């Protein structure tokens, strides 16, 4: 059975800190790993990673994939209160809709 594990499940830091969120996976037929950010409403797409070692970057957020060790990290530098959200990791394995497996999410709280 495909599995995606995110850690930590929750995290509280102060504004300005740097955080690292983890996502490990065990799937057959890996195709891609995706990160989403969910505030109080719809999850919004952040990154899709398919190749090991290539960093994807968007402003203060960055992510990298290690296909040998089967994990990905999402880094947020100089955190702001607006970064408070649930961060979801999902792995696409098999290409079909039922091949997309989500982790339980990391609930990140940024305190002023």
């Amino acid at each position: 059975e495909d599995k995606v594990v995110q850690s930590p499940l929750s995290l509280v830091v102060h504004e300005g800190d740097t955080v690292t969120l983890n996502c490990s996976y065990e799937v057959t037929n890996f195709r891609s790993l995706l990160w989403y950010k969910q505030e109080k409403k719809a999850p919004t797409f952040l990154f899709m990673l398919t190749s090991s070692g290539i960093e994807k970057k968007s402003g203060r957020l960055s992510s990298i994939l290690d296909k040998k060790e089967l994990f990905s990290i999402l880094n947020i530098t100089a955190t702001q209160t607006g970064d408070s959200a649930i961060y979801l990791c999902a792995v696409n394995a098999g290409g079909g809709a039922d091949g997309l497996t989500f982790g339980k999410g990391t609930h990140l709280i940024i305190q002023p």
Partner: protein
Amino acid sequence: DVKVTQSSRYLVKRTGEKVFLECVQDMDHENMFWYRQDPGLGLRLIYFSYDVKMKEKGDIPEGYSVSREKKERFSLILESASTNQTSMYLCASSVSLDTGELFFGEGSRLTVL
């Protein structure tokens, strides 16, 4: 801008009632999905559809049905709501099943009393 609209943000229903959750997307996407999201359990796929009138069961279809009469609209139906169906329901669409990139609606929070 890509838009997935769920008609009801908050609903309160009684046990045994029939519940309709509507979802409309304006991106001409082939694929549409219904997930439920519960604390500690993450997102779980209920049903998906890859074409009009086509539907496939996801991981937890029991107690649910769906309807896709038009490409832009995907409805989730709870024939007889039960308290364990109290949850956040998220609709999503995608242009391709290969990438896994989904566009989500804002969610419908259903409480069944």
